[in-house]
């Protein structure tokens, strides 16, 4: 990673007047290539920021164009996908076992459980990870950050299914174990995103804020957090997408969700059930990601737009 941060130096050698734009570019890039920061963040402490800057080589004007095109493209793809599935389903002949697995609104129930699991776990992930991220970047606790990140990296190596299974054995079958597993699994990427976001802030801006007499909480609330909003939003999106994914595993802990359809399909060898469960999961994941990217575009502070 140290080698990669060396690679940024050409970009940092900018004309003196362009310093504000640098922050804007890096942020923009961070939310365009949404999952990059999640993964690089998991890899090593400052990795997210380093690669975000390296990535801003691609032109920033291009970034927003692509995002908007994607925003209109995806719903069309989703509608076509779901319509095709529906058409296929009206044709498919279901035997008793498949009928049984899909009747009585079980599909709607699984879908609702999945959404509820995702929403609840995302909520807890955010109220745990973001304050923790802020705490770990304060001067008093900054020294604890590397240790926390090392711990976080160890945690990332833990397979989601193993974590979930251990929790189920410990807490018993049910939604609680599934939820705790999902939360524990998604906290780490969001935490490293938040830390990387707050660290990437241009120190001269913080200096300026302190210079005009802002108190430390003032600097945090009125300068640091607004500047880090794009990366925090990227963290929200990461959490949502991860949680939609791990919610499919909740079925192994008796937590319900769309994973029920998939596992029923696999164990009973009923392809219609399996395909329906999988397609609904894919559609939900893409839809959630789309909504989150929409939120990113709409909630981005106006001040950062000017830089790009």
């Amino acid at each position, binding site marked *: 990673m140290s*080698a990669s941060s060396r690679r940024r130096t050409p970009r940092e050698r900018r004309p003196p007047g362009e310093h504000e734009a640098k922050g804007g570019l890096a942020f923009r890039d961070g939310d365009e290539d949404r999952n990059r920061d999640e993964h690089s963040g998991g*890899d090593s402490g400052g*990795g997210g920021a380093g690669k975000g800057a390296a990535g801003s080589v691609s032109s920033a004007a291009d970034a927003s164009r692509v995002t908007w095109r994607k925003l209109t493209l995806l719903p069309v793809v989703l509608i076509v996908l779901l319509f095709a599935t529906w058409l296929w389903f009206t044709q498919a002949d279901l035997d008793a076992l498949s009928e049984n697995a899909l009747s009585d609104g079980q599909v709607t129930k699984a879908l609702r459980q999945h959404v509820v699991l995702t929403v609840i776990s995302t909520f807890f992930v955010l109220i745990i990870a973001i304050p923790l991220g802020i705490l770990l970047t304060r001067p008093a606790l900054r020294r604890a950050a590397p240790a926390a990140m090392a711990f976080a990296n160890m945690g990332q190596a833990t397979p989601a299914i*193993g974590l979930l299974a251990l929790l189920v*054995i410990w807490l018993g079958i049910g939604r609680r174990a599934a939820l705790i597993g999902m939360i524990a699994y998604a906290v780490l990427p969001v935490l490293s995103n938040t830390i990387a976001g707050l660290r990437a802030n241009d120190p001269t801006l913080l200096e300026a804020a302190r210079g005009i007499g802002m108190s430390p909480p003032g600097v945090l609330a009125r300068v640091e957090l607004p500047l880090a909003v794009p990366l925090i939003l990227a963290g929200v999106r990461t959490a949502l997408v991860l949680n*939609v994914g791990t919610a499919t595993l909740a079925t192994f802990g008796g937590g319900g969700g769309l994973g029920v359809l998939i596992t029923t399909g696999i164990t009973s060898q009923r392809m219609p059930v399996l395909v329906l469960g999988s397609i609904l999961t894919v559609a939900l994941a893409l839809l959630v990601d789309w909504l989150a990217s929409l939120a990113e575009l709409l909630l981005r502070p106006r001040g950062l737009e000017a830089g790009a």
Partner: protein
Amino acid sequence: MNFWEYLGNRHQQLLIDTYQHASVVFQCMVAATVIGVLIGVATYRSDWAGSMATTATSTLLTIPSLAMIGLLIPIVGLGVPPTVIALTLYGLLPIVRNSIVGLRGVDPALVDAATGIGMSRVARLARVELPLAWPPILTGIRVSTQMLMGIAAIAAYASGPGLGNLIFRGIASLGSSNALNQVLAGTLLIILLALLFDAGYVLIGRLTISRGIRA
């Protein structure tokens, strides 16, 4: 039976599962690295193709792995094929993204200089651009491997090979005395493998990152 007795009694089975897990992840990573870097090389020059590749790969990444495996089963059946396809697909994503980022991050002046001393397009790519882009690509490989360790565990549900089988056997026999041992052994061995692979990549980084750009 406590955990240590369990490890002692089953060490042969555990070793086989561990070996299979490591082997499937390793082979899929090699495939993913080759394909990913090729895609990166093919697309990084054009803005449009590069962003297409990045968008396509990150869209794929949002698909939950269990759903991906679920969609593959009707096409290729159970067992090793869906595991290998899913692992290679997921492994591609960070590598494609990082090779595009890495290749685009190469200082144009250096590429110019390489052209200036008469290097061909292929030589430029092989001797200047790829070595300079290698550190981010290696980071992508590390990230991919860590992700694949977990996905390979899930693929065991579709009768795939590896340590996931222990975890699922544990889940299936919840309440039995061995459930905890099985799940714990599976999970810890996966973490251990992930850390070993990671250490391996650090070593590979030491050996292969060009001396000129090493920090």
